[in-house]
């Protein structure tokens, strides 16, 4: 049972990786960006867990900056993905412009909150 599960898992991972290899590079870049943002947020959370949340607004703005930009990146990915029929008519350039604008607004607020 255990072996078969291991094998199944291996097969699953394998198929997943091959399927992912077919993903367009642009989407991979966005995935990478999302991963980078989430990791940065995680490191800050770990820091807070070790040290304490003293400058709490700084901590919040650091984490929310990362999480926010990750969410925006995910939104961008949804809009850019060609398989998504819903956003078929939306050009990727327009989606990127939205992403840039939202990021600028987000970071204005973050900077204000940073203290």
């Amino acid at each position: 049972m255990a072996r078969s599960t291991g094998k199944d898992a291996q097969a699953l991972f394998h198929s997943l990786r091959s399927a992912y290899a077919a993903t367009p590079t642009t989407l991979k870049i966005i995935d990478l960006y999302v991963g980078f943002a989430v990791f940065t947020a995680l490191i800050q959370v770990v820091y807070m867990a070790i040290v304490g949340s003293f400058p709490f607004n700084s901590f919040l703005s650091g984490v929310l900056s990362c999480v926010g930009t990750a969410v925006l990146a995910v939104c961008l990915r949804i809009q850019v993905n060609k398989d998504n029929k819903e956003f078929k008519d939306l050009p990727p350039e327009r989606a990127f412009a939205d992403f840039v604008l939202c990021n600028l607004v987000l970071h204005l607020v973050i900077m204000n909150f940073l203290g």
Partner: protein
Amino acid sequence: MARSPLRFLVLILAISICHAAGIFHPISDSHRSAALDLFKPVDGSFASLEEAYEALRTFEVLGIEKTAELSKAICKSVLGTLESSSSTPKDLFHALGVNGILKCSSKEETFEGIISSLQAVVRDANSLLDFYYSIGSLRLIKDQTSKTDLHLSDAEGTFRSIKALSQSDGRWRYSSNNPESSTFAAGIALEALSGVVSLASSEIDQFMIGAVKNDIVKLFDSIEKYDDGTFYFDEKLVNMREQQGPLATTSSVVRGLTAFSSVITESLNLPGDKILGIAKFFLGIGIPGDTKNFFDQVDLLACLENNRVSIPLILSLPSTVISLTKKDSLKVKVNTVLGSHAPPLTVTLVRAFSSSARDNSIIENQELKFDPQDAVYFLDDLPASFDVGEYIFVFKMLVQDSEQQTVYATGTLTQVPIYVTGLIKIENAKIAVLDSDLGSVETQKKLDLAGESTVSVSANHLQKLRLSFQMSTPLGNAFKPHQAFLRLRHETKVEHTFVVGSSGKKFEITLDFLGLVEKFFYLSGRYDIQLTVGDAVMENSLLREIGYVELDLPEPPENASRPPPQPVDPYTRYGPKAEITHIFRAPEKRPPEELSLAFLVLTILPLFGFIIGLLRLGVNLKNFPTSAVPATFAVIFHLGIAAVLLLYVLFWLKLDLFTTLKTLCFLGVFLMVVGHRTLSHLASASAKLKSA
């Protein structure tokens, strides 16, 4: 402590002397220094010749030297006025007045042109001021040159036209078409008339002069009077264009009066009392703060100093306090108004009486001796019957030379308040604690009020405290001081003051503590006892701590009133304040620096991971526009984003929200335009690719 009673005494003396009116002192050095302060030339000269004349005349009367530079500067403007053909008679009058003092020019040719024009003014004049200035100028020229042909062509007619302006009550009108009459104008008219008389080639009709003398007598009927025997003239008009005060009015009248009396042969026969009263009025005003008033005062006193009507003599006392312990003698000075010596006089102390008992004269008709060295009249020994107290001395002056008696105005009697001070005997001072019910003495201690010793007693609320002493004057009479207070002061600075009552020589106060416990706020403990005995004529006034009483009072009941908060010592208000210690919030615990730096590096690591990931994916910039214009826009777009991010960093570091938002508005609009261009170019490129 020892100085306090003395200061106290001096203060009381000063206050009581200030209230005593009726002593007038002649002009002294304080007037001279005040004159120098008041008449200060601006930029080496005075604003006008009128002011210059007032200053120079004041200096001349007071005997103050004027500097050569000042004289030179003023002379320059005097000569300018005299030589100018457009000078009015008023300008000429003041210029000639200054010239009379400074002797700027005595050349006859300087005056030639002026004389004829002034004589023409006199002929055509119809207002009093025209007469006054032109005749006054001519008279000044006559005094300053040796010209003998300086006559008024129609002196009699001029005299008549001036006299025609006079009123029935002795006052004058300024001109024939001005119905209002003025006392000030009367003085001016008299001065002008005296000028006419002195400039006349022939004798003026005696009838006319008699009429003017009559006017003067009537004018003196309208003189006004204060209770202290001073007289003055005042303008009765209300709606005059130039209202003159009593100083200027009186000064004008006296100036005219003395000028007129000096040109007529017979005397004016005016009451000497009124002349003396005017002199006292002007001495009584002290030192005026205004140049005009100062000049009026000094000029009037100078006129009175040497006149043909009557010369006032002023009786003054160097000191109105006579100490019995120092055996002071009574000294009296008699001077003229400007402070020069009077002729030989007989000064008599007519009467001296206590201000409380006016009917009992202590001295009568005692003649004062003369000390030629100090020029004072003195009375060697006061009679032994003089006790301490306030007295009123009445003096009488009489000029010894009977022919000169009419020349001087001595007044009938002069009243002067005098303080006779001395040491008051304080005896039998005792402090005792009595039993409340029986009144028997429990403890009794003697007090030495003159010395420094202190006593201490103790009492409770069922007992009484009695303080008693006897006071008597050097002659053994009863003495009642202005102030006799007993003051108890608790350690907490709560004070209670009691008046020490008296019957005859004996002073006694009994404090029944049973009735006072509430007033004392049930405060037990040590009370300092302070005794105050003070009077203006008491040389040994005292204010001292005589000891303390240890009071044992019952506990306060629940609803007893609390002692009022004591007033803060005013001096502590200016001392250093207590230091303020601020309480800050304790700083939060911070992690070690190494840990924070390590995590800073850790947060950067995902960025490296991101870049490495990008490299492994084989990201390229092939899609970047290659042609010049879109490439420029693309570069500017990226720079714009960088600029916005940089602005955010600056916002974090130092800028405020408003500056940031304003800058962001411009950057945002710019970024939108550029971004739109770049991205639409990319979109169209990819669309072409697709369609191809």
